[in-house]
């Protein structure tokens, strides 16, 4: 393992110190417990959007804290969910009274830790909503698994809902919008190489020189299946088809009910993409794949979508939700309406995303 790190036990801490030194105009960093928050928080009258999860996916989430996106982000250890005290303390720090929306990627660890934090914040009188992202079509069966993982759509949700909060949406409207983004989004990822968790010191999985993993998560979890290496066009075709061929997807999620202070089950359904739809297309590097290669994927994806009369209204291309130095890529397609597009286009000013 060769990385720019000092002690494997201080990786996240020292990176956060770097963030604090690099972007004092945008964010501040709390170290105990660990969270990154907007330098100007709490922002009077505005809903706070808080996300978090294991580290190793940078710039997500810490790099997306700032005007027009996240109000705070809670980084766990590398690939390890953050702990409830982080979300709880950050909520107290950034809540302006307008309430806090927790955006949580659907992983057992994240869900459980955020759940605990939501209860703690609620008990303190903070208005809380929690919305899960679960967009990874690689996970087929939601009944017999922990459900689909939250991946690329999280970035788009943070951007869009962050802009809505900035524009003055109240807590429930922010939550509704987050839910809408999530149920209109689908993602799929592939890995060409494994990543190495610093504390582990060796690659998480072995992938022969002539194979790739299809349907990978963002933690070096093995994917849906392993294949002999293919061309960029062939891999892109598999990815885009995995998204286009994904039928209606229904699952039950738990959301927090403020009035009763307890968790209620909600049934949500994603409708398949169809001809005439407009999308935001997000082609993401897993960290070790250079942006140049993403354009080869974009080319083929655009050809395929154009042929299906699905129009790419906006795109995002680059390393935004990564798995350390893993080589690989993911595609996220979000079916958009005017509301989502408006908030996508709104200004954003964070270390990791700016326009």
């Amino acid at each position: 393992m060769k990385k720019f790190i000092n002690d494997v036990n201080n990786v996240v801490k020292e990176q956060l110190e770097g963030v604090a030194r690099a972007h004092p105009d945008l964010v501040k960093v709390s170290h105990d417990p660990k969270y990154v928050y907007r330098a100007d928080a709490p922002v009077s009258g505005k809903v706070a959007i808080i996300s978090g999860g294991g580290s190793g996916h940078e710039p997500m989430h810490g790099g997306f804290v700032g005007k027009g996106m996240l109000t705070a982000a809670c980084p766990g250890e590398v690939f390890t969910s953050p702990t409830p005290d982080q979300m709880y303390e950050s909520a107290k720090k950034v809540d302006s009274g307008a309430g806090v929306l927790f955006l949580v990627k659907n992983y057992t660890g994240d869900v459980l830790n955020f759940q605990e934090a939501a209860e703690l914040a609620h008990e303190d009188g903070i208005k809380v909503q929690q919305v899960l992202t679960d967009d990874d079509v690689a996970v087929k069966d939601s009944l017999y698994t922990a459900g689909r993982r939250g991946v690329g759509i999280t970035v788009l949700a943070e951007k869009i809902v962050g802009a809505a909060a900035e524009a003055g949406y109240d807590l429930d409207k922010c939550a509704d919008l987050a839910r809408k983004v999530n149920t209109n989004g689908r993602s799929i990822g592939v890995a060409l190489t494994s990543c190495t968790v610093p504390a582990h010191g060796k690659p998480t999985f072995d992938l022969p020189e002539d194979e790739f993993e299809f349907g990978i998560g963002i933690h070096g979890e093995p994917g849906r299946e392993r294949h002999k290496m293919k061309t960029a066009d062939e891999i892109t075709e598999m990815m885009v088809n995995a998204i286009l061929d994904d039928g209606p997807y229904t699952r039950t999620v738990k959301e927090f009910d403020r009035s009763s202070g307890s968790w209620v089950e909600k049934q949500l359904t994603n409708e398949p993409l169809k001809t005439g739809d407009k999308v935001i297309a997000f082609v993401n590097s897993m960290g070790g794949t250079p942006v140049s290669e993403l354009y080869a994927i974009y080319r083929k994806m655009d050809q395929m979508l154009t042929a299906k009369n699905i129009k790419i209204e906006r795109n995002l291309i680059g390393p935004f939700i990564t798995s350390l130095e893993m080589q690989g890529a993911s595609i996220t397609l979000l079916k958009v309406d005017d509301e989502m597009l408006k908030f996508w286009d709104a200004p954003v000013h964070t270390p990791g995303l700016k326009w």
Partner: protein
Amino acid sequence: MSNNINKSQILQWIKAVSETIKENKDYLTDLDAAIGDADHGINMERGFSKVLEKFDSYKDKPISDIFKAIAMTLMSTVGGASGPLYGRIFRKMSVATKDTPDSLTSEELYQALKDGIDGVMEIGGAKVGDKTMVDVWVPALEVFRNELGNGSDLKTIMEKVVSEADKQVEATIPLVARKGRASYLGERSAGHQDPGATSSDLILKALASVVE
């Protein structure tokens, strides 16, 4: 032979858990590398070394407070899925031992552990056979309950509990995971031992090692 576990044994248990987790850190992590994200040993070691570090701050308190301190420490240091789950076990044990500050009878110990794993199932939603830590705790605690019925002493009980736990850990190998990160692998999760079940087995073994 005894039917009690006293506070000093409980403190010994905590030390023994910290020790065995430390020794098995790489082993647990390697298990997690196969079907998860290669951090279970790291997570657990981080948590229990903190538990040990704080030893002096809770060692003179009632048993319930000891469990509470451990719960809060695990919850705020372990992270991942196992952090809130193990945290929950100790939090529920804390609630169950409110009225028994210095020592627990076998029955009280059983009830505390049972409340703990029930708490895990409540928030995690896993059932036996889903290839999680639940697969170890539930059958092992059933053995505990049966042996209580048989009037066995605590040492004997824990021997049988551990032998069941050992069996159940191995029994996770052929299973297809339905909860937690390993569930994403579907069929490919079969053939690997569950890391959380393994750490649970270690925790029960440590408990067996301190009872008399």
